[in-house]
């Protein structure tokens, strides 16, 4: 199971006054993460009707690679910032691809 491909969805809600900063900080995660081992895709989205609401859709070749990603310095930098920039806690969920 640990070597199975894993999908992550992350819902991130910025405060109206921090949305530009959140967008910028999240954007900084893309390039270094896409170079990480096991990263299949790491895509950032913004809601069509709410520019404070972001969604990350990520696929990793294994849970081990995902865990390594969490320990990466750029992710830890983001977690440091998240507490003050977000309107509510991030919602993370794990998915298994069926087809």
């Amino acid at each position, binding site marked *: 199971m640990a070597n199975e491909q894993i999908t992550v969805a992350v819902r991130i809600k910025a405060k109206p006054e921090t949305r530009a900063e959140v967008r910028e900080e999240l954007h900084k995660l893309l390039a270094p993460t896409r170079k990480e081992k096991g990263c299949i895709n790491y895509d950032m989205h913004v809601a069509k009707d709410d520019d404070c609401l972001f969604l990350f859709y990520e696929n990793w070749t294994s849970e081990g690679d995902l*865990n*390594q990603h*969490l*320990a990466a310095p750029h992710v*830890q930098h983001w977690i*440091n910032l*998240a*507490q003050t920039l977000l309107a509510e*806690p991030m919602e*993370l969920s794990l998915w298994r691809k069926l087809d």
Partner: protein
Amino acid sequence: MAQARLDELEGARRNVTLADEFSSGYRAPWWLPGGDLQTLYAYAVRFNAPVAYRRERWETPDGDFLDIDEVEPDRPSTKFVVLFHGLEGSSQSHYALGLMAHARRYGWRGAVVHFRGCSGEANRLPRSYHCGDSAEIDWIVRRLKERHPRSDLYAVGVSLGGNVLLKWLGESGEAARAIVKRAAAVSAPVDLNAAARVLDFGYRKIIYTRAFLRSLRKKVLRKISNHRLEIQIPEVLACATFRAIDELYTAPFHGFASAEDYWSRSSSKPLLKRIEVPTLLLNARNDPFLPERALPLGSEVSDRVTLEYPASGGHVGFVSSPFPGSFDWMPRRIVKFFSACQR
């Protein structure tokens, strides 16, 4: 220099003692290294589904009010757990949602008491809440006991709430046993001078204190406009440390001569030897809010107090693997402590 070396050796000896004697079953996930990340991750990620609370407003004898959020208020349970939250916390704080969800699963009733001004609505008086307000805890737990005379009442305090609860337990001594059956304090800053010293300097001031101060300054500004307090607005806006805001507002409006006086008289550490209620004191040794050297040793607490100092966990950051993590360990540990003591 020699004294500094001796202090260092004493610190190392003390840390070995803490690690050996007060170990814990808790281990942080490997992907969440360090006390800061453990703390921040717990605040930044949602772990629990929303909890269905029913809010009740209690009018206080001094003309103010407290908002209490109850879970399972109509359940015929004989176990009742009451939670006192941390600085600027509420019933929506991650630890409150975790503990109340867990209590509910166990068939217990539960309540989160909002300190004054923390329920989403400003309180009526110029005063607010503070780290040493054990008189407030006394009034609340006595009232809860009166309302639920047949229930076993268990009290939990987290961070600031933990310090106030411990202070009340110490001051009340034997009398507390008639009200509260067991208690637990999590990440309590039992030595407020030590906590303020680490939070008011360096990176911790930037990561943690800045966020707390943003919220506290807003509250003081509202107090100035609602109650015409004699505090200058620029002075509030300039507050960037706990010392500054405690000197300007908390101390003078809650009966203390200065910030130092407030911290000294509000710290629960000197009272821990007087606790008569079986109490769990759970503090991670890498808590960024309280240096390890400030944690009480076995000789500094009564034999009713169980000290548990896991090496990791940060400040109320007891997240467990696997990713994205859960916040079940702390509620489980507390309920286990409460249940084990009954035998």
